[in-house]
């Protein structure tokens, strides 16, 4: 594996990790909202 390929793999892993992080963060907010609605304290 060439250094360029290594770099590209790292870049893709990083972008996937960032997207996954953003999605998980959004889900935390969504589940928090759903929970508040479900327990009726909105």
């Amino acid at each position, binding site marked *: *594996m060439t250094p360029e*390929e290594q770099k*590209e*793999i790292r870049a*893709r*892993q990083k*972008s*996937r990790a960032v*997207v996954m992080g953003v999605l998980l963060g959004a889900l935390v907010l*969504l589940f928090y*909202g*759903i929970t*508040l*609605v479900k327990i009726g304290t*909105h």
Partner: protein
Amino acid sequence: MTTATIDARSGMPAHWRDFLALTKPRVMTLVVFTGLCGLLAAPGHIHPILGFTAILCIALGAGAAGALNQWYEADIDALMKRTAGRPLPAGRMDRQSALHFGVGLSFFSVILMGMATNWLAAAILAISILFYVIVYTIWLKPRTAQNIVIGGAAGAFPPLIGWPAVTGDVSALPIALFALIFFWTPPHFWALALFVKTDYANAGIPMLPVVAGEVPTRRQIWLYTAIMAIAAMAPVLLRLSGPIYGTAALLATGLFAVFAFQVSQRRETDPARMGPEKRLFKYSILYLFLLFGAIVVDRWVFA
């Protein structure tokens, strides 16, 4: 990095954009819109956060179905120009990743729907995914020239999911909305098939214009338009809607019928001179947005 996410050809992990592409985001516009209209037309109240979650689940379910469709059809997609650039046939992702992604997203969307709204909406969402993947993609698409009619049923589910997300039950109006999209799909799709020469035949998929010829296709466009018109007027005839939807449906369906009739009478075979066919296709999209918008406005005004 697991082996499941490495493309066998290049050794590269698949790009996140290719996972997004698996969900067919462009098809999602109509799914989200009709699902939202089913939800907004339903009697009763749903908290905006739960309503948003319901629409999100419909979109995720559609995305999951799209991913499983591409997982199953990777070898067929490779044979057609339009689809050869998709992540799997282009070799940017291995099939296992697409399968895991599709199955995971399916379960996630159904479970989230059940927990946020109710299990009837979740069950219909699950049925719609299974219908699209198993009945349409695996079973009927490669076997019959009426495949797009069956595929239309899969696309017709969203209002039938959005409605029970609010009410917890299914009544005549969401079924009428389901029927409207179901019978709208054949004239919509075959109008396109007349002027866009696809290479479905190369991939062994029996599309009506290829298998039966253009004249029967034009005749069937007219036939399904007639049935679609009945479905469009059903909410009026069953007294489930008021004059706003009634007027909109009558005028818009009348124009649809005029365009479809013109197409059914023509014998043009040169795609460059298929103005009326292109007009019918473009109008068919506007038509569906119009009628679903009208039913929501109607229900809000006369509720």
